[in-house]
């Protein structure tokens, strides 16, 4: 008979940034390296305070820039350490070369990226453009909807990144200015439960590690066939990550009592005719509007992407197949395409959706707020599409001027 641990998890009212910092602390990383940037700053401040209080026994490297943060954690993780870093926007872009190197080196890094706009303008505003700018770097991308999920995903990310069968770095994204600064109740698990959840990794074979005198070197040139082999191994690991993440989500539920459905979360999808596809903090608002629309008799549902890379195409096709109309909400742009990035990618699977029609919504970029009214507009427009009405392929929800001018 197992004696139940007396300590219990606690609800704490904290920001998404604090949730990320606490999750990092609970994962007991060996090395943390980070550089502050709005809206991520609080993450590294909190970790610094934990470290200063002696609550976090890690090597804390207060680097001189994000590029060094990524380079430091990459090397530390390949030496065998558990690592953590956090950034946002321009910081993510300043890391870009190291992000590619870390993925290619298969360094199991866990990083938090607090989404913020990137291109051109020094815009301190929300948006997922930074995520899109790095989507083909070979990292696994997970996206959180609320502060609780920030904490849960960071813990799940360690299981995924460091899994012997995966060994791919994981980036946990959450919306800056929304979840970063939003204070809400978060169920903070106790250390023993987190240790138990992560202990599975200790039962696996050891990954290759850089040891002094170990006669192993990391960063070998892949010559001809060797390079191809590495690329194929990487892509194969990304594919395996889908089933692995599904399994990790289930195991997480067994210990912590929370599950999100794995790669995608389906909200009122069973009998839905029209579906919005979304990701991140907008999903909470969408759920709330869907409930109101359901009262009016509109059969709307939400498909929330929790995993963006690898693209969970099978799970999405399964959930979306046969729906009358799908509106994909993008918080970023896909320059050179009219529709948003997720829309453009999902469009590749259109023939497998059994005739579902698709449209693209662009909102929540460049300091715009995805309001309940905006979401209602999106659902109405998707209903129009389902009803066979003539609907624009791409709608900039907060920028009707574009449509008036006869533009996109």
């Amino acid at each position, binding site marked *: 008979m197992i004696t139940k641990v007396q300590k219990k998890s606690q*609800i*704490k*009212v904290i920001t998404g940034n604090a949730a990320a910092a606490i999750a990092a602390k609970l994962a007991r990383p060996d090395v943390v390296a980070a550089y502050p940037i709005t809206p991520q700053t609080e993450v590294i401040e909190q970790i610094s305070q934990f470290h200063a209080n002696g609550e976090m026994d890690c090597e804390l490297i207060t680097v001189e820039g994000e590029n060094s943060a990524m380079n430091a954690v990459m090397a530390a993780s390949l030496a065998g350490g558990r690592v953590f870093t956090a950034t946002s926007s321009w910081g993510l872009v300043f890391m870009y070369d190291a992000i590619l190197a870390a993925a290619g080196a298969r360094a199991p890094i866990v990083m938090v990226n607090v989404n913020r706009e990137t291109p051109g303008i020094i815009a*301190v*505003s*929300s948006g997922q453009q930074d995520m899109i700018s790095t989507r083909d770097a070979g990292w696994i991308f997970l996206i959180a909807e*609320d502060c609780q999920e920030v904490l849960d995903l960071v813990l799940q990310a360690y299981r995924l990144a460091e899994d012997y069968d995966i060994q791919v770095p994981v980036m946990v994204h959450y*919306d800056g*200015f*929304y*979840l970063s*600064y*939003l*204070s*809400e*109740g978060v169920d903070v698990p106790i250390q023993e439960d987190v240790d138990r959840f992560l202990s599975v990794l200790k039962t696996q074979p050891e990954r290759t590690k850089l040891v002094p005198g170990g006669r192993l070197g990391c960063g070998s040139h892949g010559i001809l066939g060797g390079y191809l082999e590495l690329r194929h191994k990487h892509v194969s690991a990304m594919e395996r990550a889908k089933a692995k993440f599904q399994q990790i989500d289930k195991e997480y539920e067994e210990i912590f009592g929370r599950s999100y459905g794995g790669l995608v979360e389906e909200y009122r999808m069973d009998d839905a005719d029209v579906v919005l596809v979304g990701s991140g*903090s*907008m999903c*909470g*608002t969408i*759920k*709330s509007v869907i409930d109101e629309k359901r009262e009016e008799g509109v059969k709307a549902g939400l498909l929330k992407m929790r995993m963006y890379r690898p693209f969970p195409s099978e799970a999405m096709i399964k959930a979306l197949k046969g729906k009358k109309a799908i509106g994909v909400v993008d918080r970023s742009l896909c320059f050179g395409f009219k529709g948003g990035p997720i829309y453009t990618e999902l469009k590749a699977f259109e023939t497998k959706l059994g005739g579902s029609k698709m449209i693209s919504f662009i909102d929540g970029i460049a*300091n715009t*707020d*995805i*309001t*309940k009214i905006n979401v209602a507009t999106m659902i109405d427009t998707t209903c129009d599409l389902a009803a066979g009405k003539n609907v624009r392929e791409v709608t900039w929800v907060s920028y009707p001027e574009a449509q008036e001018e006869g533009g996109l």
Partner: protein
Amino acid sequence: MSEVRFHGRGGQGVVTTSKILANAFARTGQFGASFPMFGFERRGAPVTAFGRFSDKPIREKTQIYNPDIIVVLDPSQKNSPAVFQGLLPGGMMLLNDADNKVGVSHENLRKLGIINANKIAVEEIGLSIPNTVVVGAFARMSGLLDIEPCCEALEDYFSGKKLAANIVCARRGFEEVELFDL
């Protein structure tokens, strides 16, 4: 669900007011969510924060456009149109003001609470940071929660002598707020 908008200036603890209230709601088994409106936070600059308080989980992650309650920590903004923007019918307003006369009006405003929070704060903590007084006054005016969870919530933000002084602030806010039905 009650949607609350907080108006003040950098240095008054506007965002913290909203955070403490969210914390207090969570302590009663209810739900609270608080976040600041984006912008550069500098001492003296106008600051807006949002709070949602409910007995059900709060999922909305948007700014608040139609508040049920407005809380004004900076008296100089009390007649600003931005403060009343979108106020729903039957709305409430909590005002930190040395002048306890009803000097504001709005068609949707039905209840007004006035508290001289700066004065109490100076007396208790020696600084004119009105936020914890306003927390107590909010509990009383809104009737949404008792003062005890508010005092408990302060433990997450203060400690030692500061905590004790701020608890006194919150209690005095709760007791001394003057309520007017309009």
